[in-house]
């Protein structure tokens, strides 16, 4: 069966009444789940599995996929409005999205996020459709050596996330790396820094750190400044309209991060979270005005928001073409496919082309739905900011607590949330940037583990890192990105 025919069949499924209904339910439920801080697509899909029993496999996949990319789409809302990331993939969205909302441009920020999500999602579906079988080999091309190089590249850019003192950014990053060493070490089974507390054995959950460092710390800040009238304009939602200039700003990152996010999504283990961070820092690294990042830069919002949605479609490549789940969410989907009587594996594409094409076609429809549903709702959703501040503060705390509780059902994590809230608050008081901490936390664990996996494989010989062309390429980019700002500075100075 050729691709065109497959896609046509797929659209037939996607445009059937049932198809449209399931896409709609999926993306609507996904958006909501994404908006609620903490509650993410993994939990939602795992809970849906018993309900899927006996359903048509294609429609069930359409539904689950809708929940997944719907959640990534919706996750940006809470990040932008409340600094409380809805899902882990939208933490980086808050870096510039929240400052924009603070400047009274909430409507604009949400519109930009929606357009970026839509673009990232749609472009990556085209890539998925055209290259899925071919990309299967890309998905397996990354071993421990390459992952180490990739994570190293991300961490090398930490200093670029500073908003003042590079020293403070580096300290923040090192603290993030330290936080991620808590828990059982995967390579040896040794518990590290757990103080004999069973609650710490599995390490600290990423969302606990993110919600604490960003949302709770922000709440504390709002309480501190609650009588400060200069904050009044944050209640403005601003116009939804984007100017020509805005679109011009958006064009570059949209073009760059759709494919970048997609490729990162294809790599098992990287996924939406890692891709959004890598996109953010590369965009900042090579930006003409890196100083604007973190202060409401449009580029800084577009990059992660395009990337995480593109990565979501990318994650379907290893799942549908190889039967390898590249992320937590796709792992749960793999389980769901089993329940539906479909064995996900390299033969899925051959045996059940309808599933593949049905999902792909539904994703076009779903992304369009998301855009059409979300854009008109933005003025209403943004009204959240009109809620009187005292009430808003209490509700944000409540949502953070439900969110964290529904991840682990463990009260201990709530105390951790509070502790990271305090840390985040102290960071702000003493002007330590929080983004390096969270970036190091995301990339650090995988960097350490892949480093040590590689060294176990090579019996301790470091030469293994120079035997992979991909790794060498990534190391070269790290060095280049490290050197780039220096060159630029010199040029700027000369010009002066």
């Amino acid at each position, binding site marked *: 069966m050729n691709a065109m025919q497959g896609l046509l069949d797929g659209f037939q499924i996607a445009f059937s009444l049932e198809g449209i209904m399931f896409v709609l339910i999926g993306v609507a439920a996904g958006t909501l789940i994404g908006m609620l801080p903490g509650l993410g697509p993994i939990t939602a899909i795992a809970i849906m599995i018993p309900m899927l029993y006996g359903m048509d496999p294609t429609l069930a996949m359409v539904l689950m996929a809708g929940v997944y990319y719907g959640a990534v789409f919706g996750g940006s809302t809470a990040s932008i409005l409340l600094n409380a990331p809805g899902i882990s993939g939208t933490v980086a969205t808050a870096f510039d999205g929240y400052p924009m909302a603070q400047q009274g441009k909430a409507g604009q920020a949400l519109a930009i996020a929606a357009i970026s999500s839509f673009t990232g999602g749609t472009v990556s579906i085209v890539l998925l459709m055209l290259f899925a079988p071919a990309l299967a080999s890309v998905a397996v091309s990354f071993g421990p050596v390459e992952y180490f190089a990739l994570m190293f590249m991300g961490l090398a850019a930490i200093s670029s996330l500073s908003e003042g003192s590079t020293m403070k950014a580096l300290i923040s990053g090192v603290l993030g790396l330290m936080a991620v*060493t808590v828990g059982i070490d995967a390579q040896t089974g040794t518990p590290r820094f757990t103080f004999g507390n069973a609650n710490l054995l599995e390490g600290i959950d990423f969302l606990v750190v993110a919600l604490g460092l960003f949302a709770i710390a922000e709440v504390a800040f709002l309480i501190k400044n609650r009588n400060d009238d200069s904050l009044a304009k944050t209640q403005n939602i601003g116009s939804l309209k984007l100017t020509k200039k805005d679109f011009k700003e958006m064009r570059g990152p949209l073009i760059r991060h759709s494919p970048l996010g997609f490729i990162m999504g294809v790599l098992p283990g990287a996924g939406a979270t890692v891709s959004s961070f890598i996109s953010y820092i590369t965009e900042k690294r090579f930006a003409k005005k890196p100083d604007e990042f973190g202060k409401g830069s449009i580029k800084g919002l577009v990059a992660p928001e395009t990337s995480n949605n593109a990565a979501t479609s990318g994650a379907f490549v290893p799942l549908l073409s190889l039967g390898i789940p590249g992320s937590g969410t796709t792992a749960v989907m793999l389980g769901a496919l089993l329940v539906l009587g479909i064995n996900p594996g390299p033969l899925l594409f051959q045996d059940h082309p309808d599933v593949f094409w049905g999902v792909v076609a539904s994703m076009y429809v779903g992304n369009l739905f998301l855009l059409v549903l979300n854009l008109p709702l933005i003025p209403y959703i943004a009204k959240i900011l009109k809620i009187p501040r005292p009430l808003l503060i209490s509700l944000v705390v409540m949502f953070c607590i439900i969110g964290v509780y529904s991840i682990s059902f463990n009260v201990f994590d709530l105390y951790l949330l509070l502790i990271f809230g305090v840390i985040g608050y102290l960071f702000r008081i003493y002007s330590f940037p929080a983004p390096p901490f969270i970036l190091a936390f995301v990339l650090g664990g995988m960097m350490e583990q892949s480093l040590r996996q590689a060294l176990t494989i090579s019996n301790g010989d470091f030469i293994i890192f120079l035997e992979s062309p991909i790794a060498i390429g990534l190391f070269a980019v790290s060095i280049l990105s490290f050197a780039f700002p220096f060159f630029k500075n010199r040029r700027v100075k000369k010009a002066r």
Partner: protein
Amino acid sequence: MLKSADRKISVVLIALAIGYLILSYQLPPYEFVPVDSDLMPKALGYLLIALAVGLFFTGKSDADEDKKEESTTSKSETPALLAVTAMVLAYILLLEVLGFVIVTVLFVFFCSWFLGYKKFKVNATVSILFPVILYYIFNYLLQIRLPAGILPF
């Protein structure tokens, strides 16, 4: 004075790094891997010390920024912050004891009231409606069980 804030932090960080290093050196060895679980923590510990020492001596360049942040800190708000922290702590402590609905209603109502929200009716409506609806959505529609506590449903 401002410079000393950074210096104090750097001392705290060095203390933290030393504590972390002591724990790192106590990690039990595992013989079957070339690089053990202690390498990364030790490296991080020393790196943090080095950076903290660096901060101690370079604190000056950040002084301007600190000034800006510091000036907005109105000392009178510290009690409010502590009070809200205490409320959140109580919320967490009682969550599984009294159940989600009761504690959340109390927290949202009193926290909003404490922070200066005076419209009692709206406050009461919101603080009752939100937790109840959320509890219903989570427990019955999403099948995610939030703690019921002393309420029978």
